[in-house]
């Protein structure tokens, strides 16, 4: 854990703190139908034209049911749209590589994945998808699924800030404004910047390079479905190939990477994601990509404080997130720096730590930081292979996701997930001070507790239910390339990543099978939409409540005591559910590794 790492961590935190307020203030304008931004002269006419085309009356607010229904319908249509594009990509333009249509289960999985802002990829982008599929089918969702998350969190915050009302804003207006005023302009700037760092942006067919030194490789034999052929003992059949030429990926990468980070989508243009030199060319691009993952989620906490007229509350929520983030970074960094005793027995210098699966360009600190950032937020982009982390190092991303992606979190999703814990913390603390619990003056009653707990329940059911099914079913075990606790971690990670809408993977799992495509697709849909419905019901209940003025009898929802309370609630209620399963996975694996066993 060298000094340069500490300095970079400090710079990252300072930069994060600095962008939070401006982003929050900008969100105040974006999430207000009458908000003003410097882009109005350009975008207002476009915004109005969009409403006319959609038949939306911008000042007509929705009740929570209308809002939720609009969001669900929009997502359903978007999901079907993407499914259709993937199934028909061989007939559609911009397919210079001549890729065939995506098969049904993979198309379902991918459509669900991008609709839910997960971007779990059971395929290699450069070897499966046409430019059209990437740009229209997927990048479209990268924008609107991010905008949907931000809209939902905006609606929830409004529900907390407003009182004695029935409506919580207009979904279409939120969706359009977030896309036009926030995501598109910021991505434009970010993409241009990434191009300046060396990222590609073109429509050329893939370049072919002749290798200076031809090499022989053992590759797994695949059938026409793209599945690995296995021998009688279940091992993949391999064949030797001599490689003389290399395909070098091309395409409109920068535009997709900008929104992939800013919108916490995480789906890589190429399979290697942000570890690929094109997708992450320089240390600066690495830093900015990490910062842009957190930018909107962090700004939303400021937006919360501003909206409820208690800026300290916003900062306290931010602080809780940042403390959990720091805990993760430090543990992961420490575990990776400590390395693997087995490597050390083999002569790897202990000081090098665990470099397996990491880019030498990024090293241990930036890999650990990126892994923590991408799993705290439900981004899922990776610049190193989490599967190759030490058991404890890999525990951190897994744990982050299982907390419910609330540490800064996916755009919007992080805030509304954290607010569920805030409501629960307020409920328990409120009882402890002897009053019906109040959150910013609103009484937290049975219905609100029910909806908050329902959303936690859905997360636990999606993760544990599917993982338990996978771990004892032949379909689930078929995808495992590792045995022992590491195999369990891989399955647990896959379904956590799906339900948490993260999209990163413990790469040892072969997910492109009909069973995994289907279950993971459902897992992602449950984790997104079944979570949102109770949260919106909570919003609908909160917005109707009267506000009791604060007094000495109401405890403050800011400051150290509330911070401790919130952290305690997150860790006790959010984490204890997964600890038994985690013990059988990464925790046991860590002890076994120290005992000299690997999986």
């Amino acid at each position, binding site marked *: 854990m060298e000094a340069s790492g500490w300095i970079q961590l400090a710079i990252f935190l300072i930069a994060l703190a600095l962008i939070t307020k401006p982003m929050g203030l900008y969100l105040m304008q974006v999430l207000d139908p009458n908000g003003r931004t410097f882009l109005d002269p350009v975008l207002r006419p476009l915004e109005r034209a969009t409403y006319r085309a959609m038949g939306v009356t911008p000042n007509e607010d929705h009740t929570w049911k209308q809002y939720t229904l609009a969001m669900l319908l929009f997502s359903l249509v978007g999901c079907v749209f993407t499914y259709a594009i993937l199934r028909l990509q061989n007939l559609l333009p911009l397919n210079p590589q001549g890729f065939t249509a995506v098969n049904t289960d993979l198309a379902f999985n991918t459509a669900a994945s991008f609709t839910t802002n997960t971007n779990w990829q059971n395929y290699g982008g450069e070897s499966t998808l046409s430019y059209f599929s990437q740009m229209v089918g997927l990048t479209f969702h990268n924008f609107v699924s991010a905008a949907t998350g931000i809209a939902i969190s905006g609606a929830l915050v409004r529900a907390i800030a407003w009182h004695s009302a029935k409506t919580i804003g207009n979904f279409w207006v939120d969706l359009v404004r977030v896309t036009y005023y926030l995501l598109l302009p910021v991505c434009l700037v970010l993409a241009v910047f990434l191009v300046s760092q060396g990222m590609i942006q073109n429509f050329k067919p893939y370049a072919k390079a002749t290798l200076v030194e031809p090499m022989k490789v053992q590759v797994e034999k695949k059938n026409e479905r793209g599945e690995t052929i296995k021998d009688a003992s279940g091992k993949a059949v391999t064949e030797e190939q001599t490689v003389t030429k290399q395909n070098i990926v091309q395409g409109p990468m920068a535009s997709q990477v900008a929104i992939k980070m800013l919108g916490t989508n995480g789906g890589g243009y190429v399979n290697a994601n942000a570890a690929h030199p094109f997708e992450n060319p320089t240390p600066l691009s690495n830093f900015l990509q990490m910062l842009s993952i957190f930018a909107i989620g962090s700004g939303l906490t400021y937006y919360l404080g501003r909206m409820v007229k208690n800026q300290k509350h916003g900062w306290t929520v931010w602080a809780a997130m940042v403390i959990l983030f720091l805990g993760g970074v430090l543990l992961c960094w420490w575990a990776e720096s400590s390395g693997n005793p087995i490597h050390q027995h083999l002569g790897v210098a202990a000081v090098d730590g665990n470099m397996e699966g990491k880019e030498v360009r990024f090293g241990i600190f930036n890999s650990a930081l990126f892994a923590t950032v991408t799993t705290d937020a439900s981004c899922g982009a990776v610049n190193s292979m989490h599967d190759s982390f030490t058991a404890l190092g890999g525990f951190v991303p897994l744990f982050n996701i299982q907390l419910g992606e609330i540490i800064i979190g996916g755009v919007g999703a992080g805030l509304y997930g954290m607010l569920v814990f805030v409501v629960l913390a307020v409920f328990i603390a409120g009882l402890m001070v*002897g009053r019906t619990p109040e959150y910013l003056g609103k009484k937290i009653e049975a219905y609100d507790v029910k909806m908050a707990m329902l959303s936690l329940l859905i997360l636990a059911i999606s993760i544990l239910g599917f*993982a338990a099914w996978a771990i004892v079913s032949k379909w689930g075990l078929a995808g495992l390339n590792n045995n022992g606790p590491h195999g369990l971690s891989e399955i647990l990670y896959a379904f956590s990543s799906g339900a948490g809408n993260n999209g990163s993977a413990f790469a040892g799992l072969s997910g492109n099978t009909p069973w995994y495509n289907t279950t993971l697709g459902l897992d992602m849909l449950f984790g997104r939409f079944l979570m949102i419905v109770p949260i919106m019901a909570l919003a609908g209940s909160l917005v109707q409540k009267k506000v009791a003025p604060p007094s000495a009898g109401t405890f403050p929802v800011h400051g150290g005591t509330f911070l401790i309370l919130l952290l305690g609630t997150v860790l006790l209620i959010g984490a204890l559910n997964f600890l038994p*399963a985690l013990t059988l996975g990464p925790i*046991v694996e860590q002890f076994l590794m120290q005992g000299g066993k690997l999986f």
Partner: protein
Amino acid sequence: MTQKPASLFDWNIVGPAIGDAFKKLNPRLMVKNPVMFVTMVGAALTTVGIFTADSALRSFVAQLAIWLWFTVLFANFAEAVAEGRGKAQAASLRRARKETMARRLRNGREEKVPAPILHKGDLVVCEAGDIIPADGDVVEGIASVDEAAITGESAPVIRESGGDRSAVTGGTRVLSDRIVIRVTADKGAGFLDKMIALVEGARRQKTPNEIALTILLAALTFIFLLVCVTLKPFGIYSGAAFSIPVLVALLVCLIPTTIGGLLSAIGIAGMDRVLQRNVLAMSGRAVEAAGDVDVLLLDKTGTITLGNRMAVGFHPAPGVESNDLAASAQLSSLADETPEGRSIVVLAKEKFGLRAREMHELEATFVPFTAQTRMSGVDLHANGAQPTMRVRKGAAEAVRGFVESAGGMFPQSVAKTVDEISHRGGTPLVVASDMITLGTIELKDVVKGGIKERFAQLRKMGIKTVMITGDNPLTAAAIAAEAGVDDFMAEATPEQKLKRIRHEQAEGHLVAMTGDGTNDAPALAQADVGVAMNTGTQAAREAGNMVDLDSNPTKLLDIVEIGKQMLITRGSLTTFSIANDVAKYFAIIPAMLMATFPEIAPLNIMHLHSPTSAILSAVIFNALIIIALIPLALRGVAYKPMGALAILQRNLLIYGFGGLVVPFIGIKLIDLIITALHLG
């Protein structure tokens, strides 16, 4: 009925409670408490497991089963003890409900019927010696009534038709005279019946916060159930075949059994504490709402002040000696039996050594106060029928009229003194003798000792106090300042009270008030917590949601504290229960994995003896903590009036941090003991 709370483990209560704990195992009762129901199902599964377990593990599984059953029984026992204590209270209430014969009036004729068949609207007659058969309103006559059966107060009280003292309670005894009562409650719906049901827990309905908490606990239980069920397949994959009893042990330790087991006991004990304060509450909801109240409307008289104004000074008019003023003032008050009048006599004696004279010696007749004259005084008859001298005291305006009609002058300086006294919050009474204005007596309200400190505490708790008085704004402001209330309402009419309550509620406040008269009924009904005085009218009692048997308006403050204490106890034990999970996790999880992955031994940070002793210790701790916390649940968490943040910090430290640490120690100790006894 005012009685000391039974000691926590009175054998008369504990004995039957043990039996009740078993009776409560009825699944139809258990299912109301999801946490304990799941525990009971787990205990049953483990019991079955005894017969299917390996012979080597049979003793372990049997012990597990025993302790799981104990967990359920301890929770039932807690509830039974709380109910038992309530029943002890209720028994004394019920003694007042002896079957009596009522003398019902029907078509003007009296007939004897058993009290239980009386209906709302029936008229009954009660004479000296009769027990009043049902709650009702006096519609005819006046009587002194012994209410000791319900209030414990031996002095009889007057009950009369009309006015504000018309309500009578079934079970009390008429001592003198004859009254006709209109029955206002059917059998079983009277105050006593409701309260008996509440403290016995029979018809106790869950309060809103209790329902919300039950949902939280049920959801946590469901999540942990899911955790344990899915752990089975995870274990199969890992080569660790977890047995059902072990998974049940983990489940029971993780679900919040501590608060789940004590939740209803806390509620019943809270109602019991309300009753010990001699307050009848119509529902648990009302008591809980009292904890939320942040605006108290308090009647000045009786709550903030001692009820009576006292004379504190004489201010003579120009050219009049203080002595003469005092003498006349005393003279005018000799026969005035009001507390104010008596205080004038006393003050004259104290200040000027004037002895009270006898009226008949002076051949004086008393002229009582009337609403028309707004004066009282004496007429002196030297030797004849015609009064030779008329001495009056009264409101300045009234006396001015009296003096001027006699041809005298009302001095400007007296008017000025009157104003000054009013400004100070006092009440000026002007004394005149025929046409001469003698001066002014200053009367003052005496604020109760300690009340200012109490209001300061309330302010710290975030509760605003509003004084309600019929006084003029000047007087009210002065008393409000002296008593330290936050606000006051002067010249308050019942309509204004109602308006004020609605206004506060519209701003999001919860309002409590006390009242007694029929004209208070709308305000009592509108208030979130309305405490009616037992001396009040039946209308007021019906409108409020609590009745204070002692008719002591200060009681409202106690009720607020009990309401808060109930919530605090629930919240604190919930925190404690959830925090306990960490230690149990460290006890059970390593024990479950030890056989398959011996490398995990360092996770056994408590160094528990063996896997079986570790699991047993956690389960035993989980059961015993319920018993250990029963006294706390019944007594309630200590409550001191202070700011919310301070309370939160204190309880977080004790029950949150304590909840993390205590089980580590407890489980380790139990492990040492069962290891020494070779049980593990």
